[in-house]
């Protein structure tokens, strides 16, 4: 276990290897949030309810999805396909190390840095801008939101890993990744809150894994789901995670037989 913490630690320090790069990363994150904030602040009519959300709720939803997106989706494991195709995967295969765990803890290291700085930046922005957003104060909902975000993170990890294993059969995985992100954006609710859809369509969405990447954790945070539904949702996320973990494992085993360690 210690080895994986070392991986998280070394990734953590890797993110700060280039100071300018690091600063630009943070500036980008902050700017992105600010742009979305000011845009929607200007567009949304004050006081009026839209799509059954009031002003501060919809603003929180939009900012929240963008924030969760940056935690859940931003991932080091995008390099899996590259590692397969460049042959640098060989470096891992000859070591007593689990490639899944390696990438998972690399993600943890990367995300820890991201979350740490985002927390500071958000606090600063909150006190400067005093935005009319919804702050959840109920510890139960906060805890459940954290669990569901962690579950979303695991789910995304395995989906991403499966996409990475396409590298075993194709040298180019940009297209499937791109398609996936477009689709996921829609199904996960990054364009609009999913519950504005007709009830029967939304019911189908609830069975899909993607809902649990963004929409669900945010709804939990907003405290808009009954406790029962929240628990069921978290379980669904973990079941989907297990399914994708299984597929990822299978793809990995199959892939290794095809692996030719090209690229010198």
């Amino acid at each position: 276990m210690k080895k994986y913490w070392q991986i998280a630690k070394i990734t953590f320090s890797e993110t700060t290897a280039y100071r300018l790069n690091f600063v630009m990363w943070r500036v980008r994150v902050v700017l992105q949030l600010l742009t979305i904030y000011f845009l929607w602040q200007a567009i949304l009519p004050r006081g009026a309810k839209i799509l059954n959300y009031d002003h501060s709720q919809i603003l929180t939803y939009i900012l929240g999805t963008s924030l969760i997106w940056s935690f859940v989706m931003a991932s080091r494991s995008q390099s899996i396909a590259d590692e397969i195709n460049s042959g640098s995967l060989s470096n891992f295969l000859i070591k007593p190390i689990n490639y899944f765990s390696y990438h998972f803890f690399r993600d943890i290291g990367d995300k820890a840095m991201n979350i740490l700085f985002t927390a500071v930046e958000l606090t600063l922005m909150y006190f400067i801008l005093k935005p009319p957003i919804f702050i959840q104060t109920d510890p139960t909902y906060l805890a459940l939101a954290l669990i569901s975000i962690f579950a979303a993170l695991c789910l995304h990890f395995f989906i991403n890993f499966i996409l990475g294993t396409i590298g075993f059969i194709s040298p180019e995985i940009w297209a499937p990744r791109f398609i996936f992100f477009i689709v996921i954006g829609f199904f996960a609710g990054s364009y609009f809150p999913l519950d504005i859809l007709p009830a029967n369509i939304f019911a189908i969405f609830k069975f899909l894994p993607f809902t649990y990447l963004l929409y669900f954790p945010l709804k939990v945070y907003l405290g808009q789901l009954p406790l029962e539904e929240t628990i069921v949702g978290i379980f669904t996320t973990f079941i989907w995670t297990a399914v994708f973990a299984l597929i990822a494992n299978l793809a990995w085993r199959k892939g290794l037989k095809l692996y030719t360690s090209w690229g010198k």
Partner: protein
Amino acid sequence: MLEFSKMDTISVKNLVKTYQVFKKEPGILGTFKSLVSRKYEKVKAVDDISFSIKEGELVGFIGPNGAGKTTTLKCLSGLLYPTSGEISVLNFKPWQRKRQFLTNISFVMGQKNQLWWDLPAIETFLLNKEIFEINDSQFKKTLGELVDLLDAKDILNIQVKRLSLGQRMKCELIAALIHLPKVLFLDEPTIGLDVVMQEKLREFVKSYNKNFHSTIILTSHYMEDVQNLAKRVIVINFGKIVFDGLLTELVKKKAPYKLISFMERNKDNFVKIKKLGKIIEQDFPKLTIRVSSKDSNRIASQILDNFTVEDLTIEEADIAEIIREVFEKSKK
């Protein structure tokens, strides 16, 4: 610890590895054709080879580009599944990649690095310490020894990408050996290095082999690497073993001749002498001829007695030359 000394550390029986490659006709038409239907062809990278290596042996693997050296090493280290045949390394089947196996081998690829590019090399060493579960005191001891052997004390804390190729190779070796592997695969470790660094690395490999009694397979394009390091060589070409034995045997068998060089300032004599052997080099008054090994002494004294030559030397045939001939002969 497991005991292997009585048995072969590495044994390979009838190993075959084929790759599937698809062939594309040139040009635009060929491009479209290849989208619709692809012709796949199986290429035998390694074609039915067998050999075994004992503990502590240092074996040179030589062959031209694409001969199958690297593929063999990849099969031995568990990176590739063999198409057929049996491999046993330290009594493990490499492709199963068992923990016990992986903690006892290492594979250094001259053209691929495991060091974390943006961080100092020491970070990679520390990571490997955890990966191989080496305790603090053992880690310190090994690191100290390796750093001394390679004279790398000053470069451990410098960002890897700022190191020169030679310095990086030193760090690569430390990272690869920090767990003191019993079996070490070195795939062209000296590639791209200058002569001084090559020499240093050779010295290092030699002493590592001696000090830690590890089994080493080395591939290289540089004959000097093999000549200096390995007593035994396995020559491989087109996926088949062409020769397996002592380097001196190879020389005796494939090149039973020596080279006699001298200066002869008399033009008439110069022409006469040429008939005594096969001319390798002539640049009046310098001449080098090739004669069979068993006749070399007789011919040399004949030259000394009958002509007025200066600076006569008898040399062994050049290894690189011999190898080249072996390759030429083993062409399909």
